[in-house]
């Protein structure tokens, strides 16, 4: 929901999928609220340490 408030919203994502891969019913934040996408390659396990 906070994505709606930003003039520029940056999404740091673990996985970038092709258009159409997401189930329309499962999308809770439409892309209109996201202006930048950054895909990080850092593994989750590394962040936990």
């Amino acid at each position, binding site marked *: 929901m906070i994505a*709606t*408030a930003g003039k520029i919203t940056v999404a740091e994502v673990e996985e970038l999928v092709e*258009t*159409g891969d*997401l189930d*329309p*019913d499962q*999308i809770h934040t*439409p*892309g*209109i*609220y996201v202006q930048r996408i950054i895909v990080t390659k850092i593994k989750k396990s590394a962040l936990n340490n």
Partner: protein
Amino acid sequence: MTREQIAQRIAQEVMPGYCVNLGIGIPTLVANYIPVEKMLCCRVKMVFRYGGFPSEKRCRPGFNQRRKQTVTAVKGASFFSSADSFAMIRGGHVNLTVLGAMQVDEHGDIANWMIPGKLVKGMGGAMILSLARDE
């Protein structure tokens, strides 16, 4: 000019990447004339990136826009609530809105009250949509 010709003309105003709000009536037809590659964000209440009317074969009962007409969802569509659609409007995320008005004068004053004997829900979103514009 036919309804379809009017819709085609409006469709030319839609630029790639636009978030468009389409009202009831002729505005709904506009989606039929927006090429898919141009359609980044197009919605008629609750469906993001929706295509035009379905052919009989592709028709899915229950998949309707607000006026209960069936629509199609193009690849990359997402569904959202009426509350979300007003959040987009108030947040200034909509680039273009096409209102379906009942009565309008030459200055653009709109009177969307009701048609006696018909079940059309009054003013709709026109008030908030016209307020939320940038300039």
